[in-house]
């Protein structure tokens, strides 16, 4: 499972992702140049749009919250040796769970009751959506990459059906639910700051960010500080070794996918309870796929994921600024950059790893393993 060439830990976790990111950004700059804009001006706009104002920072962290949830989801499955492409669908269905709770309790109970129930419902719905692909992988050997892709499409059909036929607010054209009761609104960060006397510009950045940080801490404890986490990592790295150690890989697969789906399922807390205040079509809008990039860049470690999620949040926010200021660029440019980051961090990392490893010749692995950093998904 180890990569083709070994690097010192700091180079592996810090230097290599930075080089990959730089390569992706340089290539993006070439694209911007082809579009007829100055890459340097674009970069400056991107950074100032994302981090130059309080509002920009708020939006950056709001987007980052989504990516923390999905990035953690992808990472947990990864540690079990699974590639969960289904976070998009799990986030979608999980959001349905949180949204239903908000619709049900939003005008009946205080936030202190609504929030825990919404978290549990989001996690439960997300986990449930991951359960079938997990079970099929564990017991029937169905390739989880394919089944989770299929489940993304099934989730989209299911949610469209529910929104168009069941949840739609009567007398309304667009497929959206009614607005949640005000008790289900997660307080925005600027409101919370105002309570302690700090003024901060309004933005959709909200309490869900704190929940995402807690989730990251929880994942760290679970994966690196518990017996279960050890079993998870052993099963992910070597199934036969796991069996010899008395660990059941199929049970671990199912548990890891449940946790993965539950984490992705919490996206609705930020997107629906925190910002939109209703259930609407396609609210994850690709966050499940950005989660793949975040997990890859963050090396599947919660700290790395936090950093990468903020980076992608800044990209999302700075990208809208870019689209606003430069007439020849639209928000899709952000998607291009995301794709390039995934390409360099996930698929082309050996391009830089191999020459870098030559700098530390003593650490070259004796027998190169074929899978570049990622386990081959089963």
């Amino acid at each position, binding site marked *: 499972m180890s990569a*083709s060439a070994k690097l010192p830990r700091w180079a592996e976790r810090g230097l290599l992702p930075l080089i990959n990111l730089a390569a992706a950004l340089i290539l993006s700059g070439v*694209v911007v140049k*082809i*579009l*007829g804009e100055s890459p340097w001006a674009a970069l400056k706009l991107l950074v100032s749009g994302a981090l130059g104002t309080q509002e920009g920072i708020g939006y950056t962290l709001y987007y980052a919250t989504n990516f923390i949830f999905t990035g953690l989801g992808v990472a947990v499955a990864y540690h079990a040796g699974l*590639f969960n*492409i289904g976070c998009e669908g799990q986030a979608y269905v999980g959001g349905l769970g949180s949204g239903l709770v908000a619709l049900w309790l939003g005008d009946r109970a205080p936030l202190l009751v609504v929030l825990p129930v919404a978290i549990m419902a989001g996690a439960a719905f997300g986990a449930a959506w991951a359960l*079938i*692909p997990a079970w*099929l992988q564990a017991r*029937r050997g*169905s*390739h989880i*990459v*394919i*089944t989770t*892709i*299929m*489940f993304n*499409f*099934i989730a989209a*059909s*299911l949610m*469209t*059906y529910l929104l*168009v*036929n069941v949840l739609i607010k009567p007398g309304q054209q667009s497929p959206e639910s009614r607005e949640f009761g005000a008790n289900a609104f997660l307080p925005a960060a600027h409101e919370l700051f105002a309570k302690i006397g700090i003024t901060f510009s309004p933005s959709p950045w909200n309490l869900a960010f704190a929940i995402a940080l807690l989730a990251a801490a929880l994942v760290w404890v679970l994966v690196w500080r518990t017996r279960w986490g050890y079993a998870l990592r052993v099963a992910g790295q070597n199934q036969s070794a796991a069996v010899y150690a008395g660990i059941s890989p199929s049970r671990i697969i199912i548990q890891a996918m449940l946790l993965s789906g539950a984490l992705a399922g919490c996206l609705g807390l930020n997107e629906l309870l925190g910002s939109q205040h209703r259930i609407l079509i396609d609210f994850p809008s690709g966050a499940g*796929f950005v989660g*793949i990039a975040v997990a*890859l860049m963050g090396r599947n470690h919660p700290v790395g994921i936090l950093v990468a999620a903020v980076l992608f949040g800044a990209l999302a926010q700075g990208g809208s600024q870019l689209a606003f200021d430069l007439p*020849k*660029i*639209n928000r*899709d*440019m*952000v*998607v*291009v*950059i*995301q*794709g*390039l980051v*995934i*390409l360099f961090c*996930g*698929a*082309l*990392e*050996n*391009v830089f790893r191999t020459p870098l490893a030559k700098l530390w010749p003593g650490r070259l692995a004796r027998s*190169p*393993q*074929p*899978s*570049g*950093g*990622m386990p*081959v*998904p089963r």
Partner: protein
Amino acid sequence: METYTLIVLTLAATIRVATPLLLAAIAGMFSERSGVVDLGLEGKMLGAAFAAAAVSAATGSAWAGLGAGIAAAVLLALLLAFATVSQRGNQVVAAMAINIMVAGLGPTLALAWFNLGGQTPQLDGPGQRFTSLVWPWASTAAEHPFPGLLYAQLLSGHNLIVYAAAALVPASAWVLFRTRFGLRLRAVGENPHAVDTAGISVTGLRYQAILISGVLCGVAGTYLSTAASAGFTRDMTAGKGYLALAALIFGKWKPYPTLFACLLFAFTDALASRLQGVALPLVGVIPVQAILALPYVLTVLLLAGFVGKATAPAAIGVPYAKEK
């Protein structure tokens, strides 16, 4: 008679929907048979759809569009091959990266070049699209329900790419199962070490397979933007690449069963648009979404082994490292 006409028209629609699926699924068959997972069908098709529409709009020639579509898909395929075969990167990650990148790149370039909000101009000039070929006497034959209408709707009245896709099925079956190249291709997907031992280049074979996949995805994407519709729009593949992959799995990586799977999936699509809001006897109104989700549900059931058994090529997804 009314019902009969409806059925024939639905079948004609099935053929039109099935064409890009079939092209992409056969494309996937070549690369997956060589041991490379082809999740990149979606991105290669989308890239080709954009390039074809853009070049056709600029030159006024659908054939130039086809060339550009194929070139774009081949370039993406080369990138995929470099990442997965040469660099031994993860095949799933590389393909997802390309899909995401292309989803952004198409509208980005379209906005910069045509300034129409991420679309290409409407292709309405003469020769800018692949239009339907009407066979001799089709309009006369259409007046006679049987077999005239079948002739007019099912055999006649499609564009060139549809017929090419139909011919591709026996052609690919012949290449895969009756030629030396096909034998080697299948061998490299089952046991690359054996192929390597026989002195044949695993890398070379996989590159060839991925390039064939690129060419066919190029044709499929061109069909979407210059035949099925008149121009490129954002996300116009709308998951067809993944659906084609599902069809390939449903067809157990074999040409004729894959053709059947494509027709079945396309039929559910054609049916969904016909059955929108129609109350059927006994069951009432079937939600369109349920019919649209059917291909994915069927594929999951197949993968689970509840409907037959799909066995993937043994070495699929595993990068090959030559022993030193």
